[in-house]
């Protein structure tokens, strides 16, 4: 081989190959369970999400944690199998099956080798339709939940999230990110059964299947597996919207022994189905949603204040939030907050440049393709579209809609939806090391981690 010249500028792309969007098939089982299937035979594997629209927002005010505990106990034994037998039946298939409640819905997530899918479907049906809620299992789950709560209180990220939700959402149920010990103690097997009866119905659920299975075979298997599960009609609770904020406030959570400060700051944002949400998403990505973002380049790469810094738009049915986060050493906490608020001010004042917008759009559209390259990624996207009530064709139109966002849309979104002077600033750390530095940003409330 002869001597070569070093290429000093980036090579151009070749023509973009089209992304074949996952083709969705929809049907409803005899029992009334709606099913979305993406047939994907690249690997002999299947990913499932059985979604029930019940989350912590459905918890009665006196029983925070009820939806979470119900979800947990779903997999701790069914009327047919005790917890060990159930776990063994799942794991013998090379499968995983776990249930988890978030604010708006509960997801039973499962993965399985394709040849064992029929048997996994039966087990999935058992958990959602016929959980046992046996007394000994519920007692153990309660005891462990209380201990876990206790453990969570030593984790700075949990403490930050907990205080932040409380400040942002006030009396709205989104303000609760974990159960209370009193509530857990007050829950009995019958409490779980009633709650389960009320919400766990096929007409309140959705099954998303991505993997090596065809529609007709799946349909038949589901009719068999979910045969006894009956629609009952579900009433969802309604809530007053969370409070409006009119000033910036600071909330220090004193955590003795902290060597770093966990910062979490922000305020409410429009819901994911709001017409401006996509502009906000593009804006958020440019501000703090990736490594090349303004927050990362400034707070980490220029200042060296943090390893992890960024911003985030949450996606929930009833209210969303815009947040920035970083973990910094106590000496620089004031400067870090100044820089982060400054980046928001900057965005409001000047928006972003045309080239920054183009690259942000490329990033969003490119990573969307990457997300859609795994079964789990496809399944999560379908669940989000359904549960957040986004337009049915959101997946198909996403990239085109991203492309249509303009610099004016971004500046408009920043001015309409970002308010640095109304943010809640939560800081978890040693109070003596940080309180003074945070005083300039607003009235400081100090609370204990425990």
């Amino acid at each position, binding site marked *: 081989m002869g001597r070569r010249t070093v290429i000093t500028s980036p090579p151009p792309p070749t023509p973009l190959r089209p992304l074949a969007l996952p083709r969705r098939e929809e049907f409803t089982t005899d029992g009334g369970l709606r099913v979305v299937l993406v047939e994907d035979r690249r690997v*002999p594997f299947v990913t499932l999400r059985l979604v029930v629209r019940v989350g912590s927002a459905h918890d009665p005010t006196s029983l925070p944690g009820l939806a979470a505990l119900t979800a947990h106990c779903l997999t701790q034994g069914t009327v047919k199998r005790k917890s060990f037998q159930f776990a063994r039946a799942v794991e013998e298939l090379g499968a995983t099956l776990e249930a988890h409640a978030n604010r708006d819905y509960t997801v039973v997530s499962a993965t399985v*080798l394709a040849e064992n899918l029929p048997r996994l479907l039966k087990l999935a049906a058992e958990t959602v339709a016929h959980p046992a809620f046996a007394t000994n299992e519920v007692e153990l789950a309660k005891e462990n939940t209380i201990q876990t709560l*206790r453990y969570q209180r030593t984790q700075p990220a949990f403490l930050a999230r907990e205080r932040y939700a409380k400040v942002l959402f006030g009396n709205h149920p989104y303000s609760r990110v974990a159960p209370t010990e009193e509530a857990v103690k007050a829950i009995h097997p019958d409490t779980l059964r009633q709650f389960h009866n009320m919400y766990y119905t096929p007409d309140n659920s959705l099954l998303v299947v991505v993997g090596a299975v065809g529609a007709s075979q799946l349909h038949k298997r589901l009719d068999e597996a979910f045969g006894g599960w009956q629609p009952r009609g579900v009433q969802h609770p309604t809530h007053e919207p969370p409070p409006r904020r009119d000033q910036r406030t600071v909330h220090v959570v004193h955590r003795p022994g902290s060597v770093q400060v966990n910062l979490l700051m922000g305020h409410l944002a429009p819901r994911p189905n709001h017409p401006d949400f996509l502009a906000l998403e593009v804006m958020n990505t440019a501000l703090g949603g990736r490594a090349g973002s303004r927050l990362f380049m400034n707070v980490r790469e220029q200042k*060296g204040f943090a390893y992890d810094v960024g911003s985030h738009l949450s996606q929930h049915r009833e209210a969303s939030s815009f947040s920035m986060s970083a973990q910094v*050493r106590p000496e620089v906490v004031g400067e870090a907050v100044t820089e982060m608020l400054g980046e928001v001010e900057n965005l409001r004042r000047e928006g972003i440049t045309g080239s920054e917008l183009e690259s942000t759009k490329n990033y969003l559209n490119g990573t969307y393709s990457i997300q859609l390259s*795994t079964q789990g990624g496809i399944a999560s996207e379908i669940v989000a579209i359904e549960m957040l009530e986004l337009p049915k064709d959101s997946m198909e139109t996403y990239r085109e809609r991203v492309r249509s966002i303009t610099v004016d849309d971004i500046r408009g979104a920043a001015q309409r939806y970002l308010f640095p002077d109304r943010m809640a600033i939560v800081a978890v750390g040693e109070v003596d090391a940080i309180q003074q530095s945070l005083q300039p940003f607003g009235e400081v409330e100090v*609370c204990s981690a425990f």
Partner: protein
Amino acid sequence: MAVQKAIPFEVPYSLHTMENGLRVVLSVDHSVPVVAVVVLYDVGARNEPPGRTGFAHLFEHMMFQGSANVKKGEFYTYVEDNGGVLNGMTSSDFTIYFEVMPSNQLELALWLEADRMRSLQVNQENLDNQREVVKEEKRLRVDNQPFAYARGILLYELAYDNFANAHSVIGSMEDLDAATLEDVQRFFRTYYAPNNAVLAIAGDFEENQALEWVRKHFGDIPPQKPPQPVDTSEPERSQEKRATYTDRLANLPAIAMAWKVPPRHSPERYALALLDRILFGGESARLHQRLVKRQKSALAVSGGLEDRRGPGLFTAFVVFKPDRAFEQIEQSIYAEIEKIQRKGVQARELQRAKNQLRAERFRGVWGGLYGLQTPLGRAIELAYHTLFDGDPALINTELQRYLQVTGQDIQTVAQHFLVPSNRTVLHILPAASGVASEEELGWDDER
């Protein structure tokens, strides 16, 4: 249980070696217009001498700070502005970098990786900046988290006797402070050479085109004298090692333990991997059943085989309820191990463990990122097999080795390795202030 016939699955690949020693492994799959590029360097924390701990990881950060034709910050923007994601990771055994891109940007990713392999440029300002970033990373991951130091660093320092294996990847901050620009340059010359690396590309591309680009961008990067091999051998232990650590951030007690096990190449590791699933592989696994369900003493049980290129560890980590005694938890773990040593395992649980291994190939062990369903997962797995084992074919054949393990093999490795004289036991005492009493736990008290 009846065993359903497995559906066959193979990853195609081809292996090429450039004149400068760069090994290139390719795996084509046109199903999604995405391509993953992985560069795996044969250097990790194990190459660090005493007084230079944390250096391999700090160096990984420096690889994003600019090269001859890519200014500071531009590595991120070139990848992300063109729709890709990227990262790097350092372990005791290796340092790995990856980009996942829309497939029409493959050449860009290759150019970026080649430019920094050829001509990394570091200056004092960037070194100082990344040193601070790494210190924040250590505070975030270790110093400010309950159990993180004891479980993630101290256990290894105790369990290994050879410094190369024992010291942590994140290293000591004093050592990092002592690192000079010259150190960084020397490290780069020694280890970041084409003959000390594997380049793997997986996803949507044409082989000939990719090879042409690899030659164009990497072909004239000069090879270096191969670095000194690291001695990772571990002396045998003749007696148990015990220690206690007081964790000022924890409010629950925990036990961490480790047994020394042989290197990645040894035949025993296949049986150890299945023993891992039998003891720790899910809620039906033995230790979860015993400690969490029947005895109701533990909150979380984890552990298993930590495979390294050199000698590895088999570990257990149990967080338990404050009214239980260390002795009780420890004895329960031993009792379950002794049962296997005496009676072996059931055919049924062995089959379960094998099915779990088969499924993990597709799911990936860390949240799906590295499973064989993604281009990135395939590229990483091919790179590992090429660098560590010298044979990418293992991506398809290795599974058979696991499926051939018998109950007797498992009993034998349990008898041989999970014995008192080969183990390290660490008791972690909770000492977080303000959490002792029940009354303080209610979270409404704080207003």
